């Protein structure tokens, strides 16, 4: 696995430079808690043999707003909608309510202190 560090400001530029629809394939977005911050990961893989998995990651504070990559990768809206509900993070242009009911506690995957 090839891990590349990026920041929220450079995120869209890095992904737009890397992603080519006929060579790469977007898999999923993920979020892991590391101490007080959250590490957000974007996983890509190539359509070739032998293939390689590339992961762009960014360490953020829980309240920051993450830019959405829906205009570069069209099918990313499902992954973003899931993370917004389950981890209680903030992604632009994504509303809550895709996964959980409105009266459920938000962010069930966060560690309870």
């Amino acid at each position, binding site marked *: 696995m090839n891990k590349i560090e990026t920041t929220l400001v450079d995120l869209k530029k890095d992904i737009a430079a890397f992603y080519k629809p006929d060579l790469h394939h977007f898999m*999923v977005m993920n979020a*892991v808690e590391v101490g007080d911050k959250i590490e957000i990961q974007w996983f890509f893989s190539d359509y070739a043999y032998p293939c390689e998995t590339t992961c762009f990651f960014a360490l953020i504070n829980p309240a920051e707003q993450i830019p959405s990559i829906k205009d570069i990768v069209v099918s990313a809206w499902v992954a973003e909608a899931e993370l917004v509900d389950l981890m209680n993070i903030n992604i632009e242009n994504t509303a809550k309510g895709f996964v959980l009911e409105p009266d459920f506690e938000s962010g069930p995957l966060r560690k309870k202190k």
Partner: protein
Amino acid sequence: MAKQYEIPIGAQHISLLEPLHFKFTTENEKIVKTDANVYYVHRGIEQACCSKFKFRQVSFVVGRVCGLCSISHTTAYSQVAEKLVKIEVPKRAKYLRMLVIELDRIHSHLLCLSHVAENSGFEALFMKTMQYREFSMELLEAVCGNRIQYDFSIVGGVARDLKPQVAQSIMERLKKFMPQLDELVDIYKNNWTLLLKNKGAGAITKEDAMRLNVVGPFARAAGLAVDVRNETEDLLPWKEVGYEMITETGGDVYARNMVRLRELYVSIRIIENIINGLPETPLITETKAFPDGEATVRLEAPRGELFYYAKGNKTQVLERLKIKAPTFSNVAAMAEAFTGNEYGSAPAIIASYDPCLSCTAR
């Protein structure tokens, strides 16, 4: 402009096997826009695996995410846990895992084909395909001990061995199944009323498939040659046992049926090669290490690409587990595949896309 109506195909519907919900905006019965809602069976498995279960017990929990691709989940989790504790599995265990994955692919593809036939109105073909599928359930029971939840892969190897008389009965039953498969291919390819319902329905082009990142037989039917078995060789030796890629052009329901049927021939050949060339090594690698670091694994389930990410922290309980099911990647494409079709073909299109909502909304 004609009047627009919103019609749902709801969570409870007589033709749906899975609890999903689409709200169509239609104009004169042609669908214009779709809204999807797919999280009806969320059970919180990722949270349970990281708090309540030890890392060796998680392979049994994860096998119960889906009833149809149970072996894919247990094998993918075992592989990612083996990467975290840094052990290597013996060769006989790899071959046995591939055997059960291919037997599982046979039963899952036949189930999907029979469901497509039922939704197209051809009930007799649905019954016939289910009758021909029964032998694979009995073979899986003889190999793994159970018809559906085979707790076959564990961390470090495989739980049971393959006995010689079971291997012989597999070869005999497969020989009996080949003419039945030829008969099914003939009906799905040439029956006039079935072609009227399936040809041209729910089509997507190759460019759309690349843009929307679809996986599985859904993508291979549109001409996009993507299959995890073609792309990875380090964990399971697929090319050694005779794997070949099947693609079709057209991208409609007819092409998806053909891809699934032709993949059955490849699966039967792989099973015969495995049984004839099974190496003699032990079944399990023992270790006392705890998982540490992070790792990812991709595997080809019957519906597409399955992706696992795990992170350990040197204790018995994992820190984070992320599962991505194949249907999760196809939801976006599904919502776009409906536009331009009639409302009456919606059940057949949903069935041909082969959703597995238990995997998606775990």
